[in-house]
């Protein structure tokens, strides 16, 4: 690939790619990231072999894509331009898909999405898709993430080129502030303000870090974005780097995400070879380089000062703030840290303008949010909806509700730092503030649906065990507080609870929250507080009953076939 020397080159390059585009070509997009676990790669191989066998190379194109969202039907594929969606595809289905669907235009019923006995062949008609609003995930599942040309064809790097050739740093920051984008990692701090702090900070070097240490159990949106559309994150980082005046970026990725690392490496290499990363990008005097750092398995490293310590090669322990990373971060230099999803939101804000972006969402929370929908829900998968969408719409309209004859009990939001939202709040429009009011947090967007067989005390114990295990041990309130709360919760679930345990739990929760050094300890008690708030009767029942209370466990074999 030849380097692009100016913004016009990028436009010319996209035009040349467009002219090569063949509208008569059938495109079969197969998710080979998440669906890999259920044999998507074998399906791809079978397609390629069949295409060769039938000499259809000029007519059908197989595209390895990232996550298409409806993981419950994995392995999934979409056939374009027809817009057909097939799920649970195996190698043996491949010859039939080619001979019947592609060559004759027939629908294969058994592979279609089914709800209440009705088969829906087209993506646009499936409620799971039609009720979503895909902004961040718009390319995810539609393009080959290992090919930069596909991203450029979808107006990729156009936003950055616009910024580079026509906006000052302050204009970029103002546009960000105007858009109302807030950090998608959990806390919801306004991104534009964060950038402004770092821009104003004094320092010869400034660092830009992308936090991809997605550690919340039950959250997998950052993984999907990095795997399925890595260039959108790189482009977001480029715009951020330009705004704050950084030449050096780092993407910190969890070690458990090998495909994300692989796709990012390819994306960085391709962006470098096109001159979109490196020195004098697009002929300007702006230079920016990007490195990948892999985590080594520590949840606390999602906290920004711990993450910085980890990049510096130390034990990943947080430190008190201030000084904030914006003034003294990596190697003591001003550092800006944003989450993967936050960066992936940036390009479209500059492509369509902050006014367009601001129109989506609620008063306090703009844009969309990706949720990882899992647990006792029919359509497990990745969902992107405007802020302000109700929990009911997400769980029932999009998620298809609770499988089997079970009833919805609660949605756990925000992972170990979050809480359980009970059925009475199903119609709550979800944004940063409303979720907080009901005792959970937006967090990174993990949304675990629980049915009426789930013991809420067990859930509180489960999260406390997680926090206790992941507590770095530096500060006493978190180290000892989580341990003592875990002891009490374990005691209660074993039927050895005491009357005074609930008050003791509340007191410990309060102290741990107020006195802990970082977010991990400050929020570790949230699942306890929220379950006591809504399910006090379950605590009391276990305490009053005494004797060992077997935890309700459901066997996956007894679940409805649509989720089996």
């Amino acid at each position, binding site marked *: 690939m030849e380097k692009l020397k100016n913004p016009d080159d990028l436009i010319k390059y996209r035009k040349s790619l467009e002219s090569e585009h063949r509208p008569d070509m059938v495109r079969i997009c197969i998710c080979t990231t998440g669906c890999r676990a259920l044999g998507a790669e074998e399906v791809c191989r079978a397609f390629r072999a069949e295409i060769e066998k039938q000499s259809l190379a000029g007519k059908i194109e197989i595209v390895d894509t990232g996550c298409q969202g409806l993981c419950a039907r994995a392995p999934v594929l979409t056939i374009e331009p027809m817009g057909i969606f097939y799920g649970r595809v195996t190698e043996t289905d491949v010859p039939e898909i080619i001979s019947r669907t592609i060559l004759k235009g027939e629908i294969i019923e058994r592979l279609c999405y089914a709800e209440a006995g009705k088969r829906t062949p087209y993506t646009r008609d499936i409620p799971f898709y039609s009720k979503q609003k895909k902004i961040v995930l718009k390319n995810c599942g539609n393009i080959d993430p290992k090919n930069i040309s596909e991203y450029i064809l979808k107006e990729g790097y156009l936003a950055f080129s616009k910024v580079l050739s026509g906006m000052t740093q302050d204009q970029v920051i103002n546009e960000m502030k105007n858009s109302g984008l807030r950090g998608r990692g959990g806390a919801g701090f306004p991104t534009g303000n964060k950038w402004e702090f770092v821009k104003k900070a004094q320092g010869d070097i400034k660092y830009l870090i992308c936090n991809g240490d997605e550690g919340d159990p039950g959250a997998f949106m950052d993984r999907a974005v990095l795997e399925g559309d890595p260039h959108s994150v790189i482009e977001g980082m480029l715009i951020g780097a330009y705004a704050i005046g950084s030449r050096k970026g780092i993407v910190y990725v969890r070690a458990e995400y090998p495909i994300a690392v692989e796709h990012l490496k390819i994306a960085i290499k391709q962006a470098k070879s096109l001159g979109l990363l490196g020195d004098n990008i697009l002929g300007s005097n702006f230079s920016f380089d990007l490195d990948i750092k892999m985590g080594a398995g520590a949840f606390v490293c999602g906290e920004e000062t711990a993450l910085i310590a980890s990049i510096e090669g130390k034990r990943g322990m947080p430190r008190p703030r201030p000084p904030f990373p914006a003034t003294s971060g990596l190697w003591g230099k001003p550092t800006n840290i944003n989450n993967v999803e936050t960066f992936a939101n940036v390009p479209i804000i500059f492509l369509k303008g902050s006014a367009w972006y601001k129109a989506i969402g609620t008063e306090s929370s703009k844009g969309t949010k990706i949720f990882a929908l899992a*647990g006792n829900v029919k359509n497990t998968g990745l969902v992107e909806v405007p802020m302000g969408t109700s929990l009911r719409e997400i769980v029932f309209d999009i998620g298809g509700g609770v499988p089997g004859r079970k009833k919805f009990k609660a949605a756990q939001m925000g992972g170990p730092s979050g809480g359980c939202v009970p059925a009475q709040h199903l119609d709550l429009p979800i944004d940063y503030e409303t979720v907080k009011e009901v005792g959970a947090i937006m967090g990174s967007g993990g949304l675990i649906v629980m049915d009426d067989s789930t013991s809420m005390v067990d859930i509180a114990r489960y999260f406390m065990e997680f926090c206790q295990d992941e507590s770095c041990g530096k500060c006493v309130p978190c180290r000892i507080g989580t341990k003592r709360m875990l002891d009490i919760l374990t005691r209660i679930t074993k039927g050895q609870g005491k009357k005074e345990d609930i008050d003791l739990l509340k007191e410990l929760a309060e102290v741990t929250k107020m006195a802990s050094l970082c977010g991990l300890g400050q929020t570790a008690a949230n699942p306890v507080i929220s379950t006591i708030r809504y399910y006090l009767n379950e605590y009391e029942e276990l305490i009053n009953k005494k004797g060992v209370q077997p935890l309700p466990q459901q066997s996956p074999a007894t679940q409805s076939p649509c989720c089996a």
Partner: protein
Amino acid sequence: MHKTVTLNEESAPAVDLAKCRAILLKYNSATSADLIPVLQQIQDAYGYLPQNTLEEITARTRIPLSKIYGVVTFYSQFSLEPRGKHTIKVCTGTACHIKGAPEIKKKITEVLQVDERQTTQDYKFTYEPVACLGTCFLAPVMMINDRYYGKLTVEKTETILKSY
């Protein structure tokens, strides 16, 4: 986190340092920022972090052994003891938890006769629960080496383990 580790001379045989030296050669003037990537590569090469490789890092980089030990014991990815031929990672994420992961974990302990984060006596399996594999649609799920096994039942788990 908080691993209990014993550095025992007898159980920690010295290994051939050729691979370790080759890795360190890539870092001309290694700084502390390179420590974690170096450790990750050494663990990839040897399957664990043999004691004499850590001493070699100290000799080449002048990073104190105590500091290296501190880092190694902090991150759950690192192991100071030889690991089994196959690594079993059982997801203990929320979705897996409510769909029966505790039963799966119990079964593994029962079949392999090892506790969490331990290696079987014949060095066939190392068993480690992980916070979340990010594949909630497969819940409950485990990974053996690079292969996913989803929608597990207690019976299925036993059959899978016995197939290795």
